[in-house]
């Protein structure tokens, strides 16, 4: 279980995250929903040590995580909004490079893992292409495959469907659901309400750096009236 306790973050005196606490179980998808600038992406960036936490703690299975060394431990992975694939490498190298240089795997082992991941994500025919030759959906799948290569326990996804059409959004949602079924803890920052409809998740609506309302997607779909703020946001009234 991932537990965030009283996470605070300010940029130049401006409070971006204000005492954010939440728990995400293994196999659970937590969706941080909200308009731009409410702090949902910042939360994911903090968890990946791309920003430093002002105060608050992060626990994984009740063990406090040292955020300064979090990237070396490979407990958390991140799929970026812009994918951030290594542009000078081939599709396969984006995975094998990380395995060889970071995980110190042998060339053979790295190739084997990469081949399995590329096959799983339907990219085996693109192994020797540069990432510039991939479509948006393919880049998204490669970004997920690269993250999974390091076997993290938590996967953060920043606006995973912002650049995708509705059909690809459905495919990505299916992939995310599969990852959750495999036991990964998944945190998503998004303002794409269409994605929510396709996921079995817990929704955390954020506003001004705080979680203002939360509900599982199932609860919400049954009793929308019980979650007025969330309902207004999804209907586009707020």
């Amino acid at each position: 279980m991932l537990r965030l306790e009283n996470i605070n973050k300010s940029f130049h005196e401006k409070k971006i995250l204000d005492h954010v606490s939440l728990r995400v179980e293994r196999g659970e998808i937590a969706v941080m929903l909200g308009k731009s600038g409410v702090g949902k992406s910042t939360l994911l960036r903090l968890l990946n040590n791309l920003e430093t936490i002002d105060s608050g703690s992060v626990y994984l299975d009740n063990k406090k995580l040292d955020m300064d060394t979090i990237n070396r431990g490979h407990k958390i992975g991140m799929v970026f909004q812009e994918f951030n694939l290594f542009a000078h490498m081939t599709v396969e190298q984006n995975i094998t490079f990380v395995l060889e240089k970071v995980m110190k795997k042998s060339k053979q082992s790295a190739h084997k893992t990469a081949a399995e991941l590329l096959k799983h994500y339907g990219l085996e025919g693109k192994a020797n292409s540069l990432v510039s030759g991939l479509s948006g959906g393919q880049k998204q799948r490669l970004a997920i495959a690269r993250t999974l290569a390091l076997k993290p326990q938590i996967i953060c996804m920043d606006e995973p469907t912002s650049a995708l059409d509705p059909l690809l959004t459905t495919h990505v949602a299916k992939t995310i659901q599969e990852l959750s079924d495999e036991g990964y803890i998944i945190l998503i920052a998004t303002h794409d309400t269409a994605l929510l409809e396709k996921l079995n998740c817990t929704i955390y609506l954020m506003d001004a750096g705080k979680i203002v309302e939360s509900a599982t997607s199932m609860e919400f779909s049954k009793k929308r009236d019980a979650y007025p703020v969330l309902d207004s946001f999804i209907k586009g009234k707020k």
Partner: protein
Amino acid sequence: MTTSPIDFSLLAKSIPDLLYGALLSIQIAAGGCSIGFIFGTLFGLAQARGNVVLRILVGLYVTIFRGTPMLIQLLIAYFVFPQIGIQISAFWTAILAIGMNSTAYVSQIIRSGIASVGIGQLEAAQVLGLTKLQTIRYILLPQAIRVIFPALGNEFVTLIKDSSLASIIGVTELAKQGSMIQSQTYDALTVYFGVALMYLLMTGALSLLLSLAQRRMYKHATT
């Protein structure tokens, strides 16, 4: 019947001396280029990713070396090095001075290349657990060099021509060889035509090689 203003028999006789000079010119340019590339890369990295002290120091270095003529830098090196206990030949003085000058230019080319690599690439590297050195070695520099390759190539072609400045401190490189032959034969046109032709062949060959390398790099980048 008109005769050619170029004395081809003199030109043919001068070829061994000119080739010897051209070889020295290539050595000076290659040495300067190596120093410029190694230190220019380090200085460029320091300016792009280093702390404020490093950035100021590199900035100062670049201002001085880009703001003064290479000829003056060469003369200062030639006359000052022995006074501060550095006893090296004119040939090595030329390599060092040209290399130090090139360092300033290359550092700025490298810096601009580094700036062209998106922050997202570095963030991805960090999240994936790469060390800072691995990020520079495998992510930053390979992408930066692709962008700056033409500018870097131009700098190295320029160094071949700049190596002629070494003649001023007595290095018998190509320009000096030409000057020596001219003082014996008084046929400036023939001699300097030959010298110019040699420089053209050297810069042309390097330009061609760089162009082929760039095309190969581009081809690989679009596969």
